């Protein structure tokens, strides 16, 4: 018998029942909730007179609507200026209270972006099925967990039944072998992957990221990669369990207790694809060839190395693709042949469930240290992914590095990734953003988003336009590593 992939193993561990029509009931171990996609699900439960199947699997925190300025946050929910946003956060609080669900509220130190909070608490563990009404739930696959986003109907379904009706996906392996160049990060890997396979390349697949370049990444880097699997069309991104995974989880609040730790770790170590496991599709990348990436268009697949030029629509695939590229360039206010490094920026956003963890902030701080944000930049903001990330960064002195350089240091939340709170772009503004989507209007009406890594965003803030972080003191930053840690 052929071996099993990691995805196959996770699937069979959670299979409650296969139905004749090819669908299956899959048991859910962890359900994360936030304020945007849950109110209608709770309302549905109430209307049907149903109760949550199992309370202890649920963990909630508000993240999309929360303000990120200290002044507003000091007032708790009352500090949310937009009444519609405030009602949504209050509704989550009310629902969690009345149904008995654990919630980290707005000013709990553990509050943050749900995809930062889950792993940080150890609430995301290898071998779990993890779902959330949010497409970036793919993030948690970095732990060898089967994790994907669901809609509100499914949020209600999981609350009521602890299961989802699923069809098995196909298996894709993305192998990244070799060593990344200095200044090139996990974000650049995943943007390069999306550039290669396209935003629909992973549709219908669970993507396992493998190869030596992935093994060499920290958990933070692996989360960045799995987070954006959905931007390649795949609901699920996965990385096999190894020592890095186990060490990350040790002694986290929700991690297995001493009593079960050894048994859990032994169980987790099985969560790798067998050597002879068949994949339906394999994509290979050479890590050494990956440049720092910058998106120039309105879809994450519209991406290029920082040394490249904005492409010519006429040279871009079929007629539908050409029209898409033309429209994107018009929206972005760019022209074919323009150097990526000539794109002038108005704002810089370092944050989001893709890049707001401690390692991301360290990378950005290395570049920002001892430098100043360019005068032409109206706003450069750093938004930590959680209260605990913020605290850790402050203990390391990163907040001071950012503040001295002219960045704003904010309170945790989704912030300008999707601009549901007050943090947004104005029409026509260009933003270097460490988030995950450069869709039209995503960061604000008429806003122009360029997706980059934290180091690239920090370098762009200093220069006022995109620069190759490798020519921008990446070497110096590497040498300064220990100093930043001790600062």
């Amino acid at each position, binding site marked *: 018998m052929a071996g099993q992939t990691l995805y196959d193993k996770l699937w069979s561990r959670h299979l*409650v*029942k296969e139905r004749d*029509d*090819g669908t299956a*009931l899959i*048991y859910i171990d962890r359900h994360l909730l936030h304020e*945007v996609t849950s109110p*209608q699900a709770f*309302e549905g439960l109430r209307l*049907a007179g*149903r109760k949550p199947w*199992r309370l202890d699997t649920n963990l909630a925190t508000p993240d999309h609507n929360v303000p990120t300025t200290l002044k507003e946050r000091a007032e708790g929910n009352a500090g949310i200026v937009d009444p*519609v946003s405030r*009602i*949504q956060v209050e*509704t989550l609080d009310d629902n969690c209270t009345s149904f008995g669900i654990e919630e980290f509220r707005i000013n709990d130190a553990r509050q943050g972006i749900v995809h930062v909070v889950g792993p940080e608490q150890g609430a995301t*563990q290898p*071998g*779990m099925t993890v779902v959330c*009404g*949010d*497409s970036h*739930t793919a993030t948690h696959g970095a732990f060898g967990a089967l994790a*994907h986003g*669901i*809609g*509100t*109907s*499914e949020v*209600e*379904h999981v609350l*009521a*039944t*602890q*299961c989802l*009706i699923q069809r098995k996906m196909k298996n894709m392996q993305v192998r990244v072998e070799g060593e990344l160049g200095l200044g090139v990060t996990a974000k650049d890997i995943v943007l390069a992957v999306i550039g290669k396979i396209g*935003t*629909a390349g992973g*549709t219908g697949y669970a993507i396992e990221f493998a190869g030596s370049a992935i093994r060499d990444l920290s958990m933070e880097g692996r989360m960045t990669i799995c987070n954006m699997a*959905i931007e390649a*069309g795949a*609901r699920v991104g996965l990385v096999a369990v190894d020592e890095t995974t186990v060490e990350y989880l040790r002694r986290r609040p*929700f991690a297995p*207790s001493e009593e*079960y730790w050894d*048994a859990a770790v032994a169980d987790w170590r099985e969560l790798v694809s067998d050597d002879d496991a068949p994949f339906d599709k394999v994509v290979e990348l050479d890590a050494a060839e990956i440049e720092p990436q910058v998106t120039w268009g309105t*879809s994450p697949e519209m991406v290029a190395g920082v040394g490249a030029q904005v492409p010519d629509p006429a040279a871009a695939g079929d007629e*539908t*693709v050409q*029209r*898409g590229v033309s*429209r994107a360039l018009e929206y972005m206010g760019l022209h074919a042949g323009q150097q990526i490094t000539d794109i002038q920026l108005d704002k810089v956003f370092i944050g989001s469930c893709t890049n707001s963890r401690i390692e991301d902030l360290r990378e950005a701080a290395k570049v920002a240290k001892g430098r100043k944000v360019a005068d032409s930049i109206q706003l450069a903001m750093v938004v930590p992914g959680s209260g605990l990330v913020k605290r850790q960064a402050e203990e390391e002195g990163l907040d001071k590095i950012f503040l001295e350089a002219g960045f704003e240091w904010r309170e945790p939340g989704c912030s300008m990734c*999707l601009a*549901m709170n007050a943090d947004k772009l104005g029409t026509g503004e260009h933003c270097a953003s460490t988030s995950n*989507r450069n*869709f*039209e*209007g*995503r960061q604000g*009406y008429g806003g122009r988003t360029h997706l980059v890594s934290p180091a690239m965003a920090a370098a762009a803030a200093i220069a006022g336009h995109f620069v190759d972080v490798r020519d921008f003191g990446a070497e110096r930053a590497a040498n300064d590593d220990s100093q930043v840690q001790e600062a």
Partner: protein
Amino acid sequence: MRQFDRHQGLVAPMDRANVDTDLIIPKQFLKSIKRTGFGPNLFDELRYLDEGYPGQDVANRPLNPDFVLNQTRYQGASVLLARRNFGCGSSREHAPWALEDFGFRVIIAPSFADIFFNNAFKNGLLLITFDEATVDRLFREAEAEEGYRLDVDLEKQQVTTPSGEVLTFEVDSFRKHCLLEGLDDIGLTLKDADAIDDFEKRHRQARPWLFRQAG
């Protein structure tokens, strides 16, 4: 869920690939805690020339005359013809809620994003996938002929064009069954409550750490 068996409706062709969920319903409208009322803000940034906000009366907003759904000939459209990878991006169910609330019942495209596809069926929308060449042809016909309507029969899995041409489509049997009957997934799953209970017991025995809270 609203039942779907057969539908005949005016076709609106939206000639754009990778229509994402932010385009279908921009984030400022996700703040609602209701499932209804999203229709007036469907494709908000394409439909109107100004920036929309929740709770606003859309009647006085300037319409973008170039946008397909604003053209007189497509008023009352209930079948949306779209390009590849429709619905990519977020898992927000507000996207299908907005399409349904606007009056769409059927969306035809060469491909759809996974999460959107799943969400749409749970809200009584029928999503049909045809190959690129067929979709291309439907685009040409719908653009050429004013009042172009399609007759969609889910039971027979057929789409009939005004010229009488019959196109058959594939649909997942479970989704078809739920749509035809207007069935609620949760009720169906709870029929298997015993199987879930049994699984949970075995799961707890094999991996007890999954059943412990922070301590």
